[in-house]
């Protein structure tokens, strides 16, 4: 990679959420306080489990930012789920096998595809800035970070990167029912090109191999679930923790994050 120099976005807030299947069922029934007043109460009824957790992580990040939700109306949204739609896909195949095409839910494509999380969040946030999904499988986290870092921010105040995934992945039996205890994780990162008061880290795109290797204390190649757990363990007001993702083409993305007092209040 000959990309010279270093490009940096500031992390103005972050939030995480974790839930098992029963907790997700409960989360489906409640919308965040900042959702538009005319949002139907069943908005998340047909949503993918990863969408439900994405909303919870975004809620946590907005809460910890100390800023009104209206500040985020002009933010772009990039969502990076891992294997979104697998639970719905397993159930769909069973239904199709038994009932043919007429048994397929019309919600399958709109709610369980790679674009579904970002679309839902743009509606809840009333954001008219771009929204799209990225990745989809094991390298979603790095694809999401790279997309959020490099997508042009013109017109947007900032970019939300929401990464989601299961850990462990759900195991389905022959009837399409889940037969283990999977946990869904989500992390929401608020990224801006200009540094804000109360900034809690930064995301750097490095092309220089030496500067990457000299950065000590990195956790490398965390998935959304791993990053979610590590962030949740950060010591309040402690030093920044570094997370790194090598780009397949060389270079790396380095996320430095701290747990600010505001994050602490939100967690409480």
């Amino acid at each position, binding site marked *: 990679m000959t990309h010279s120099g270093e490009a940096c976005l500031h992390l103005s807030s972050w939030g995480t959420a974790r839930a098992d299947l029963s907790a997700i069922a409960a989360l489906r029934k409640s919308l965040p306080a900042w959702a538009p007043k005319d949002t139907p109460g069943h908005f998340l009824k047909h949503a993918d489990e990863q969408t439900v957790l994405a909303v919870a992580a975004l809620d946590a990040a907005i809460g910890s930012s100390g800023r009104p939700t209206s500040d985020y109306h002009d933010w772009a949204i990039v969502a990076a789920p891992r294997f979104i739609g697998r639970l719905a896909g397993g159930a769909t195949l069973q239904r199709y096998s038994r009932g043919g095409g007429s048994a397929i839910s019309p919600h399958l494509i709109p709610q369980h595809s790679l674009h579904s999380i970002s*679309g839902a969040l743009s509606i809840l946030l009333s954001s008219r800035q*771009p929204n799209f999904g990225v990745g989809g499988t094991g390298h979603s986290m790095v694809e999401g970070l790279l997309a959020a870092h490099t997508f042009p921010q013109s017109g947007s105040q900032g970019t939300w990167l929401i990464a989601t995934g299961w850990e462990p992945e759900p195991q389905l039996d022959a009837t399409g029912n889940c037969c283990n205890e999977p946990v869904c994780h989500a992390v929401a990162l608020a990224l801006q090109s200009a540094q804000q008061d109360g900034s809690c880290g930064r995301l750097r795109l490095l092309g220089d191999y030496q500067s990457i290797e000299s950065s000590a204390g990195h956790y490398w190649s965390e998935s959304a679930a791993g990053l979610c757990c590590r962030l949740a363990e950060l010591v309040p007001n402690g030093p920044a923790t570094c997370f790194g993702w090598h780009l397949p*083409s060389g270079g790396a993305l380095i996320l430095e994050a701290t747990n600010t007092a505001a994050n602490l209040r939100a967690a409480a």
Partner: protein
Amino acid sequence: MRKCPVVITGVGAATALGHDFTTFAANLLAGRSAAGAVTDAQAGVEIRLPFCAADDPPAPPDWDAQTFQSMPRSERFVLWCAANALSDAGYTAARPEVRIGLVLGSGGELLRRWEGNWSAGGREVYEGRTDSPTLAESAARQLKLNGPVATIAAACASANYAFAQARRWIELGLVDICLAGGVETVTPICRSAFNNLRALSRRADEPQKASRPFDADRDGFVMGEGAAIMVLESADRARRRGARTYAEVAGFGASSDAFHMIIPSSDPAPAAAAMQAALDDAAIRPDQVDYVNAHATSTPVGDKGEARALHTVFGPHVARVPVSSTKSITGHLLSAAAAVEALACLAAIEHQAIPPTLNLDAPDPECALCHVPHTSIAHPVNIAVSNSFGFGGSNTTLVLRKAA
């Protein structure tokens, strides 16, 4: 004006109109509908729909045909298009010094993959494997690409985002050249899901009449399948190596409706904002646009909304800027729609002709535009605009400019 224009120097296509640009452009401008009918039967339920099927692509030159045919269908579409685009741009197999990225618009590939695996007796959807690559990752590995790779999805706007991201990577110096485009292969469950959404035309008995964007008698869209992938690189680089240039990727704009997961907003402002942002990005005025390739899918709500947005952006010029929807010919390729419609714009630029909107017998009065019904027309095309909108309220516009 951007500091470093990015241009298209190679194209690869696998569509219902043909598997190379020349054939695609000839069929498109001749207005040859690709629509037929397809019947899906399962558990005693038969669903018959109009559909634009693409033939399976052959193995690219120098590829082992047997190995190629053993790959999943969507992967074959991607590899055929990417290999041909690279070859068309003059990049042969020996290119270790060139950093090549890939951005692929592909929205439903996991559901498609799980269905294909299940249909063949597999259990991938039940097992929770975490090591399976995306189509883009797999193609990059097969093609020995050495740059970053991304899959991008904004439903039917996916490929326009792919072009924008690829252009950005080139501008940032992350890659020397970047492949960008979209792919869509359609499965029985996918067709059923859209059918149950009541988004599809029911005219299975006269499939070539089914896709009728902007027509008063439209009743839904016709699904299509295929892929288109292009090579993007800086104009400087293309000039240095004497490459053929199809067009400049001059502008991109995007917005969200923030309205509904499926239904497009009746407010034209968000779609108009995407169009205006793209024109601003390209530093052009509405009166400089020579052709609009509309998103218009042939649904009652969507076509009307786009017409209103075009009026908002183009004002009085809307009466003279030719608008057509090539989905009347190709069908709606969902994740690949924007890629194939960018290809249609390249055909318009190359042949200085506007492809038609088929079946536009009685234009909807609420879609009053400068239509090009039934047959293509000769027309100077220096700047073409391509709209692509998608589920989740995504609106995108791409501006392509004839290379200087």
